[in-house]
């Protein structure tokens, strides 16, 4: 769900300069790049073998048989006195060649059948899948042995057979990917446009499933190389004097292993190197073609952008708050700031809503408060104080002691927040036991009590269910119950209703409000919907582009916003706009992190902006009676009535 998570990679990419193709390849997949270079170099050496090898591969020198490395023979000699280094070089093309043959057959059998099965579906899919399943149960090794006996130890026959026998594995992968790609809109578009199924399969789909195919191909290359070597070792492949293979060399070496172990090493290492290279290449291709944004745990840059001037502390009445967040700064490990100077408070027993568009940093702020920032982000500055305890200073132990029994958390993804392998009962018992030592009967009673607290009518039934057996709304209730298990003083709810049906939304919201009333706990609710704010919030905190721009009690914020952005947002809310008139929108776009200008970040889109708005940093300041704003023209605009709806 990208409504609340931010595309960090895009942000990072936006913040770094472009480089050449090679440099980018090296930067993003260094090992894969290195691996492909190695493969290329080895292949080249193989082609050049007749030119660069010191001796012909078949040249014998019986007088120096089985000697170790020496000046004339850098890697020593084998049983017949042939130079191992030369044979190693001459073996490159045959060894890789046989592996390539197997791979070509592998791809040739696997790709068309896999795409056919995935695209066509139905009976075709059924037949192909059954045959593939059958083939995968057959012991391929025996078939290989028999084939080799039939075809007089012919390596080509063995490699072709290997490719065919391994194809079912590829068919499965390709079929899976095809099924996914088939559903994508561009395929539908092509079908509708009358493109023949053959062309669709041959061009569009192949291109999209190319990633997984290449991964499988590179891994299989390595496997085929090893299998060919093993068959040669077992003496099942007819050896050739002028076309040595690494496997054959290992086979010959194994016959004299009691005399000397050295001839075993060079061909073995050659195989290890190549298989390693193929494997790394496959890994690199897989990572490069990944769909989701992958987080990189890169080292934190110690020399980040210079710290901005410390913002002046806001002169709020700072005593007695349950939660106090002041000047909170959250940055990516690479230095890009996502939240800059977040400041707000939550008092005991109130419901505070943090509201703003997606990407303004509200979710990050909530996670930072709990110390649950994902990998790649860290708190770069500011204070988080809960019930008088400075959490940042106390570190992980402070956070750990406060989670669950001080602060509870409810996430947006209701179903995703529950472990699909555990029943609801298991979830509740685990969390309850974490905070209280209860006997069996008491534990049972408490779990039921919690479910009733979140207004689930038939707790007995629900307890036995698994998360995938309940609806989103029910799941969210369970999540709330889990959050309540430790009897927290504050619940942070991150867009708790966004993913739910409209009718269920209001149920959950009212549940939260009822809970607040009955237990006296506070709620910090993150939302992008003014409807939610209007429904249950006591106070609202408006965020824009990583900063808090306005704070105040909900009535004031609604009727008399103190920040142009708030006003504009309210004006643009469809649910409150008059019918029949064009919907007001805010021109321009939210500036991305990293590209924030000095001064007011809304200035470029604000109809009231002046030159002073972007002159220097704008601190939060109190605007009586009880609002906080960042706009330097707030009083002016209020007086003009420009902000009132």
């Amino acid at each position, binding site marked *: 769900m990208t409504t609340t998570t931010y595309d960090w990679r895009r942000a990072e990419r936006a913040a770094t300069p472009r480089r050449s193709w090679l440099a980018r390849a090296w930067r993003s997949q260094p090992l894969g790049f290195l691996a492909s270079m190695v493969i290329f170099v080895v292949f080249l050496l193989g082609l050049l073998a007749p030119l660069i090898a010191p001796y012909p591969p078949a040249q*014998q020198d*019986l007088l120096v048989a089985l000697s170790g490395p020496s000046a004339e023979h850098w890697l020593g000699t084998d049983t*017949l006195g042939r130079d191992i280094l030369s044979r190693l070089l001459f073996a490159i093309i045959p060894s890789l060649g046989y592996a390539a043959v197997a791979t070509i057959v592998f791809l040739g059998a696997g790709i068309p059948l896999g795409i056919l099965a995935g695209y066509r579906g139905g009976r075709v899919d059924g037949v192909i899948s059954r045959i593939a399943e059958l083939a*995968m149960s057959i012991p391929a090794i025996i078939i290989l042995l028999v084939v080799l006996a039939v075809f007089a130890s012919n390596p080509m026959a063995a490699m072709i057979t290997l490719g065919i026998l391994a194809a079912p594995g590829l068919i499965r992968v390709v079929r899976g990917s095809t099924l996914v790609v088939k559903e994508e809109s561009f395929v539908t578009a092509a079908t509708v446009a009358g493109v023949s199924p053959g062309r669709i399969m041959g061009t569009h789909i192949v291109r999209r499933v190319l990633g997984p195919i290449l991964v499988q191909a590179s891994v299989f290359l390595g496997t085929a190389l090893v299998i060919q070597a093993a068959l040669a070792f077992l*003496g099942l492949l007819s050896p050739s004097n002028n076309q040595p293979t690494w496997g054959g060399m290992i086979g010959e070496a194994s*016959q*004299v292993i009691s005399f000397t172990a*050295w001839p075993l090493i060079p061909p073995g290492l050659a195989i290890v190197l190549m298989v390693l290279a193929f494997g790394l290449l496959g890994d690199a291709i897989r990572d490069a073609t990944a769909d989701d944004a992958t987080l990189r745990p890169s080292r934190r840059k110690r020399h980040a952008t210079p710290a901005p001037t410390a913002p002046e502390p806001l002169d709020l009445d700072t005593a007695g708050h349950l939660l106090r967040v002041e000047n909170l700064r959250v940055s990516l490990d690479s230095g890009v700031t996502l939240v800059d100077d977040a400041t707000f408070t939550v008092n005991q027993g109130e419901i505070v809503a943090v509201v703003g568009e997606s990407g303004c940093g509200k979710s990050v702020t909530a996670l930072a408060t709990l110390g649950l920032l994902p990998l790649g982000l860290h708190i770069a500055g500011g204070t988080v104080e809960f019930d008088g305890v400075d959490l940042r200073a106390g570190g992980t132990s402070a956070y750990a002691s406060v989670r669950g029994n001080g602060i509870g958390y409810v996430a947006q993804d209701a179903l995703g927040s529950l472990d699909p392998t555990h029943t609801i009962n298991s979830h509740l018992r685990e969390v309850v036991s974490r905070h209280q030592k209860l006997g069996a009967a008491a534990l049972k009673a408490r779990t039921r009590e919690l479910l009733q607290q979140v207004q689930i009518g038939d707790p007995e039934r629900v307890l036995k269910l698994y998360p995938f057996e309940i609806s989103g709304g029910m799941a969210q209730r369970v999540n709330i119950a889990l959050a309540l298990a430790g009897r927290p003083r504050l619940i942070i709810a991150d867009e708790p209703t966004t993913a739910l049906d409209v009718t269920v939304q209001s149920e959950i919201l009212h549940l939260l409000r009822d809970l607040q009333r009955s237990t006296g706990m506070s709620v910090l609710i993150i939302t992008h919907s003014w409807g939610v704010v209007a429904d249950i919030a006591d106070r609202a905190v408006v965020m824009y582009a990583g900063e808090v721009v306005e704070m105040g009690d909900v009535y004031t914020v609604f009727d008399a916003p103190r920040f142009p952005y708030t006003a504009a947002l309210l004006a643009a809310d469809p649910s409150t706009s008059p019918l029949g008139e064009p919907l007001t929108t805010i021109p321009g776009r939210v500036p991305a992190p990293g590209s924030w200008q000095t001064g007011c970040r809304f200035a470029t889109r604000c109809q009231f902006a002046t030159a002073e708005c972007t002159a220097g940093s704008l601190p939060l300041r109190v605007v009586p009676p009880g609002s906080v704003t960042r706009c330097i023209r707030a009083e002016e605009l209020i007086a003009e009535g420009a902000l009132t709806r």
Partner: protein
Amino acid sequence: MSLFRTLGRATPPSNQARTFSRKTAPRRIASMVAGTVVLVLAAAGCAAGGGSGQSSAGYDGDTLTFATGTVPPSLNPAVGDPAYGLLYQWAYDPLVIMNGDGTYSPGLAEEFGYIGEGNQTYEITLRDGVEFSDGATLDAEALKTYLDYVRSQTIGSPTTLLASVDTVAVTGPLTVTLTLNRPDPGLTFYFAQAFGVGFVISPDAIEDPSSLDATTAGAGPYMLDPDETVAGDHYTFVQNPNYWNPERQHWEKVTVRVIANASSTIQALQAGQVQAALGDATTIPAAEKAGIDVIAPPQALSGINLADRGGELSEPIGDVRVRQALNMAVDRKTIAKALYGSEDLALSQYALEGQAGFTQELAETYPYDPEAAKALLADAGYPDGFTLPVLTTSVSGLDKLTEAVAGQLSEVGVTLDITTQASAPDYFTAMVSKEYPAAVIGYGLANMNTLWAGFINPVGPFNMFGTADPELDSLYQQYWTADEEAGVGLQQDINARLVDQAWTIPVVGAPLSYYLASGLTGIEATPANSGVPLITDLQPAK
């Protein structure tokens, strides 16, 4: 890795792995390199050091473990093959013992030999008071039962060897007379331990022949313990309570283990898992280096069989000058040293030193002389050499021998086009199919009689093209009817003729080898007794 990793279900699409930034990549590479370097050094360390010598204390246990590479599918010697003699001997004493100097001693038979002229009648007188392990008595009737049983077989080599026997008659309580249908001087040799026709089986057991597949019923020092035996893996022999000569029972228990891989055999010896083993020509250098006692009598003529002497497939080979030239183009001593560890194993004739047919002068007939070889080839009409298709097999390292010969022949312009059949049955099938004019050969040498059977005989497997030589035939006619003394000269003549006609390129007399832990003695194996000792003489050195 396991060998066949991706043959199976597809690896599940791996989830996004944690990739590493540029900074950690070099570190990973370094750790990978470091790991492999350690491995290389460790293994290379052993290359330099080689196998370390085993403990110097002699073996003094009362059980013996003997390792061999192959075992027959059935323990019945009558349907078996001499190659498995080292298994049969523990339970079956032979009629005749062949000593290391080529003379014969009594085994189960006290007197044996031809009577009359022309090698057409043979008489055996048995030792008195011998019992089989199942209690039956060894007398003339029992011997006749056994010999008739062997002759009635359709598979196995013993029946072929007794093909010349027409009738078996009991001519005394312990005496049997054999009447032959043609002159055959080989019987005494066949009744000795090397060829094993003399492994007499109890008449009681012969009544139920299938029992002989998995148990033994002989008159040897030991008998099989089927409970402690897993066919194809290991065979356990315990002392035969009825044995006629308890002094020869040197062990409480003998275990014969099957170890197919020659290198593994040496490792087992070094580790003390076995005390004696049938070795392999290709591992003799390794065994010696490992400090193992090696007894390695030359035994088999190993070289290239130029079978197509009629020139059917390969015209050049049909010319005797070409064949002689090839014999001059091979440096036997260097090959012998490189592949088999000793120059002395070089062989250029059809008998081994110590055997009757051996002549020292014949060793000089084809000195190593590539120039002379090329000249002779030019005389024969092949100044630029030619290509010769050759069949070889990887059994006993014969493929390495073939390649070594190929390397030398290429110096005189003759290219060997080598086809390898890995397993012995495949090799034989291909060989007798007459698709190849030449094939590698490894043929055990004993005397000219055994050489005839498989090699000179027009229907012998190693004479694929059925070539014949009138002078050879005439020599053999005389040899078959000659007595032992005259036979010696005739064998030498046959040898000389074969060398002159260059029927093969002999290269080495590949040894049969026996590896012994220190402190063991009793193996009397020489070319004179075909390299096959009386294995039951193996005992701790006192």
